[in-house]
């Protein structure tokens, strides 16, 4: 994607080389991206990586230092927030404390140049309340509401305006675990029902993975990688992304040989490992600092006596079970392997019932297939 590329017809939001600097801080640094119409898009990254600033650039609370934001193909430079066809759900909800729930929700409609009639307003507010399952709460004061209810009011207040894009800044961060889970599902359902593009900001990878159709992983104001949750999970382009998306075992080393897609690397203590390059990853040179990345569920565990052939893997290492967590469908083992260190293994129920499972202190063999391991650049 270059700054001069034609606007995608089906893109709702585009960033063309957008930067936002606060003094010396590059909160957003030369970011280009495009968000497809009707998709559920997430900015994912640790605190301070520029997610909120990106969202505020879309909403118009911040103006880019360089580049421009496009909404529905139109350049937004100089367009104030109240003239942009997007609405935002703030992290703190930012509900108006001096207004009732209904007045909060109706606020956007009352700002229109062609104000709806009282009955029409009433009707739309009631519909919105129903949509977020808050019927009958219209006359309540907002500060009487619980966190989850305030969150719903904030959602209804934004969605009643039928924006092209709904912006959500860590909307679930303040909720407890159970409620968060429920709201994630509700948000997803809602997004499908209303068909509006949702752009979510979160530092919770599980949340991003489970809700979004597309994720953009950020670090220090830049995009590390963007793609579908599956792409990011299966084909991370570097160690940072692999580390951020899902759980991964890493073995640090440096490249010794490259043979097409297969890369050979050597650890500090002289052991060689083989792994694959991932699609779209940066070029590797011999000697480059890399990590071998193996997902826990792609690692196989077997009895001490088994070898690679028994496990149907390309590698085999001896290890000792340090910890075991039974998760129902899976059992999670933390295994101390001398050559590698601690390795996390997710063993499916089918294998567990065959082998009878392993207890802490027991010696085992673990292994994986070389084509399921990735060699990733460290940066």
């Amino acid at each position, binding site marked *: 994607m270059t700054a001069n590329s034609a606007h995608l017809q089906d893109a709702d939001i585009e960033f063309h080389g957008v930067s936002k600097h606060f003094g010396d801080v590059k909160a957003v640094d030369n970011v280009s991206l495009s968000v497809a119409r009707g998709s559920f898009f997430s900015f994912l990254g640790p605190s301070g990586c520029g997610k909120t600033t990106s969202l505020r650039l879309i*909403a118009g*609370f911040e103006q880019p230092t360089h580049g421009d934001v496009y909404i529905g193909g139109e350049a937004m430079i100089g367009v*104030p*927030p*109240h003239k942009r066809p*997007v*609405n*935002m759900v*703030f992290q*703190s909800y*930012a*509900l*108006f*404390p*001096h207004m009732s729930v209904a007045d909060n929700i109706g*606020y*956007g409609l009352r*700002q*229109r140049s062609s104000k709806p009639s009282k009955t029409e307003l009433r009707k739309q507010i009631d519909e919105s309340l129903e949509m977020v399952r808050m019927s009958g709460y219209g006359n309540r*004061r907002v*500060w009487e509401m619980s966190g989850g209810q305030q969150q719903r009011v904030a959602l209804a*207040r*934004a969605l009643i*305006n039928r924006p092209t894009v709904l912006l959500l800044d860590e909307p679930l961060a303040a909720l407890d675990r159970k409620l968060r889970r429920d709201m994630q599902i509700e948000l997803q359902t809602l997004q499908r029902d209303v068909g509006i593009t949702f752009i979510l900001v979160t530092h919770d990878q599980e949340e991003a993975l489970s809700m979004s159709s597309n994720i953009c992983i950020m670090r220090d104001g830049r995009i590390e990688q963007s793609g579908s949750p599956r792409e990011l999970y299966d084909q991370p382009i570097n160690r940072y992304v692999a580390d951020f998306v899902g759980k991964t075992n890493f073995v640090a080393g440096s490249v010794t040989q490259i043979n097409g897609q297969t890369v050979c690397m050597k650890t500090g203590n002289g052991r060689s490992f083989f792994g694959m390059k991932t699609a779209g990853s940066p070029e590797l040179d011999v000697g480059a600092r890399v990590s071998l990345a193996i997902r826990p569920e792609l690692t196989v565990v077997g009895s001490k006596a088994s070898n690679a052939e028994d496990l149907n893997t390309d590698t085999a290492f001896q290890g000792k079970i340090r910890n075991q967590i039974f998760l129902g469908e899976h059992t999670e083992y933390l295994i101390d392997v001398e050559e590698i260190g601690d390795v996390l293994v997710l063993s499916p129920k089918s294998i567990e019932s065959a082998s009878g499972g392993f207890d802490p202190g027991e010696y085992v063999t673990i292994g994986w297939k070389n084509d399921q391991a990735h060699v990733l650049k460290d940066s």
Partner: protein
Amino acid sequence: MGNKKGSWLTAALLAPTTLWFLIMLVFPLIVVVIYSFGERAPVGGYVASLTLEQYANLPSRLKAFTNTMTFAPLGALMCLIIAYPLAYYLAVKVSQRWKLLLLVLVILPFWTSMLIRTYAWIFILGGRGIPTLLEIIGIEGVRLINTPFAVVVGIVYGYLPLMVFPIYVSLDKLDKRLLEAASDLGSTPFRSFVQITLPLSMPGVATGCMLVFILLMGEFLIPAFLGGGKVFFIGNALVDLFLQSRNWPFGSAVAVMLVIIMLVTVSLYMRFTMGGKSGRDTSIM
């Protein structure tokens, strides 16, 4: 209410305050009320009696009452009109670096005595002050000192900080996200001000108005210095009755009346500004 020990401790801690309150406030008030039913001794002072004569005599000071009841709200209003933009500017527009300095400048006049500062205005508004300057540019015969205008100028000058501060506090703590949310929902900056900023700064406005109003009810310096005896407040009447003519019973009756008027107006005002509602958005400051 906790256990017995806890309530004893509470009582013990509250005792000094309560005692202070009783001695300094309630006791003098009782004395004043008793005096107001008494009679003036021939040489001045008080003779015990039980008569409503002093109260019957109150209409003779009607002008002082009407003046006070005109200038106190008018002064509060003028202060509000000038203080709100100033407080808004300080709270919203000024960068964090300059805020403290400017706030100090607002209270700087309080570092010298009110008497001296009011005195200074006699010169500014008096014959050799502004009127002389106006004469230089050809406007003649303007009289400022000893007019109601001078009294209002004095009031605004003296009481402005009392209005600025509560409004500043309520504007300063206003969550900027609320304004962003309003603009996100399609509101123009002006409408956001009217719909969000103004209502949410009302507690500060109410506090400021109350402070200025109550204190103005007892004001006597400004009307005496700048009103030249033409604009007489109840405060001036009290000074006169207690210190000059030594008519303590009548002075007491005037004072009791002042307290009654203050109680009635303030409670009506509170009813009006905070009535019906309860909760955090109406808490003062």
